């Protein structure tokens, strides 16, 4: 999938920070352009794949590629500053250089979703792994049926991609249901108040000819999967992406496994059926 021109599989591509966007007080998007023109053309990825992003001197961190493969010429990553590497990535300014390895892992089988209704469900910082697919689908809008997006965060300020939520809300061909946890709303909030699983159950998207795509913290996933069951979705109709700690991204360093499944190679995209067959180790 990844055509490495380098023999050294650990060597990153260099990329320039083209734009810095603050999503929340501690979540930031970096828009990146590969410095090598050849890499700019050859770096082909699919929605769902991830990369290893480096701040030189601090190390590498694993995030999904948050932009859509349909938007050429750049990629985006989105991260919360919580550790050594992400603090350092946060210090990067427009024009600065960082490293990118990838694309790694499997991807959403988007071709299998043609002609179907899509229900996206995300919580907090877990929207980026679905946002790549959301835009991929919106850029091929006539290939899909109804598109529903249920997105929630603890507070209004914790919602990422606020400008895009606005855009999705205004589009006539997307049903956006946004929510914040009780107490997380301002007086002007025009969305729902409640936890994502509850809001999803109220929104009650039909399971008929539908695919559900869920990403969120483990606790949200735990309470969302039963809601889909009650709505009549089978485990084969529900997809999620797992995000265990990784270092190599190449199936070697040994830490991202859930049982005998390597998230970096066998995932990160799995169906609920696959996830339910895994031991509770994620």
């Amino acid at each position: 999938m990844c055509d490495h021109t380098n023999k050294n599989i650990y060597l990153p591509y260099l990329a320039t920070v083209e734009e810095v966007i603050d999503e929340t007080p501690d979540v930031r998007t970096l828009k990146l352009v590969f410095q090598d023109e050849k890499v700019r053309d050859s770096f082909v990825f699919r929605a769902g794949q991830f990369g290893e992003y480096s701040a030189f001197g601090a190390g590498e961190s694993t995030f999904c590629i948050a932009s859509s493969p349909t938007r050429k010429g750049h990629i985006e990553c989105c991260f919360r500053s919580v550790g050594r590497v992400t603090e350092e990535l946060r210090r990067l300014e427009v024009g600065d250089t960082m490293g990118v390895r990838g694309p790694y892992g499997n991807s959403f089988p988007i071709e299998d979703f043609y002609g179907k209704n899509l229900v996206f469900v995300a919580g907090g910082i877990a929207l980026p792994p679905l946002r790549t697919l959301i835009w991929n689908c919106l850029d091929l809008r006539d290939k899909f049926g109804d598109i529903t997006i249920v997105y929630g965060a603890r507070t209004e300020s914790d919602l990422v991609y606020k400008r895009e939520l606005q855009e999705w809300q205004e589009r006539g061909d997307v049903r956006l249901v946004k929510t914040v946890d009780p107490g997380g709303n301002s007086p002007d909030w025009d969305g729902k108040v409640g936890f994502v699983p509850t809001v999803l159950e109220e929104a009650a998207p039909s399971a008929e000819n539908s695919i559900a795509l869920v990403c969120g913290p483990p606790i949200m996933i735990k309470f969302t999967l039963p809601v889909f069951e009650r709505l009549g979705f089978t485990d084969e109709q529900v997809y999620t992406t797992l995000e265990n700690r990784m270092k190599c991204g190449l199936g070697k360093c040994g830490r991202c496994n859930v049982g005998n499944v390597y998230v970096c190679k066998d995932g990160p995209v799995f169906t609920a059926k696959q996830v339910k067959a895994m031991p509770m180790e994620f």
Partner: protein
Amino acid sequence: MQKYISQHNLDTLLDTLIKRGIRVVAPRMNAGIPLYEPLGSSGEVVSDTLPRRSAKEAFFPVCEDIMSYKKEGQKVTITDIDPGRFPETVLFGVRPCDAAAIPVLDAVFSWDYKDEFFLERRKKTTIIGLACTAADDACFCTAVGLSPSASKGSDLFLTALEGGGYACDTCSEKGEALIANNQALFDGPSTSNPIPFAEPQTDTFDLTKVKAWLNDHFEDPLWDGIATRCVGCGACAFVCPACHCFDIVDEGTEKAGKRRKNWDACGFWKFTHHASGHNPRDLQPKRYRNRIMHKFKYYDDKFGQTLCTGCGRCVRICPVGIDIAAIVEEINKK
């Protein structure tokens, strides 16, 4: 065909190789600790003791540079490591448990993405194995299907003979080439008997049965029982010939430095710790379970091999006396 090499000729062989600029790595004493290290001369070899750490580090060093970086203003320059700098190596005096682990490691470093750091060194290294004539209570190679005279992983395999010298079996083209280049030092087969092999006093595990139990017992009281003692020091992984988990870290300053691949261990709390604070293996029993599962189930699921060669190092070094052989034996009896 089997050959014979005298002790004197063997020493000459090692010294000749060193003189030709070939790196000869063999068990030698370093500050009182036997380790596989580059030799200055054949006289340094200690062949009567199992080195503290395994032979894997001839291919997979404890720490190694995988690139360097240099920052100037907004620009960064990265420099690749030239695999051409990995020296031609003869790895000598390797115990069967250590030699057998090397082809096991080939699987993980060569599937899909190829790790040139391991594989280039592998290409450039000839392994001379040595049969064991001594074993201690911790040795259990026979329990995992190997033996003190197993040549798996060796290019040439030496067996000490009564009356001195060694029988030398050729196990690969690399081994053949080494003999061809040094023919004068080898004679036809000897009629002497081998010095008796040291058979560890353990029962053989039924690895299929062990794996079948592991398949069904991700949750089991056994894990809590073993791992309440485990202090998570990671020593077992560091001395293991087959453990290969690693970390990737930047070491340097704001301006310049190196990116390195360092040994890591699944026994460490931080190994799987997410930035969010969530940790899928938050307790020591879960981490110890991963160690056993990886060795006797996951690696077999993926590569059809067991990630343990019965060297017994983890048993000897564990500060709280956890005995992997006893654990697998217990599973074997279930």
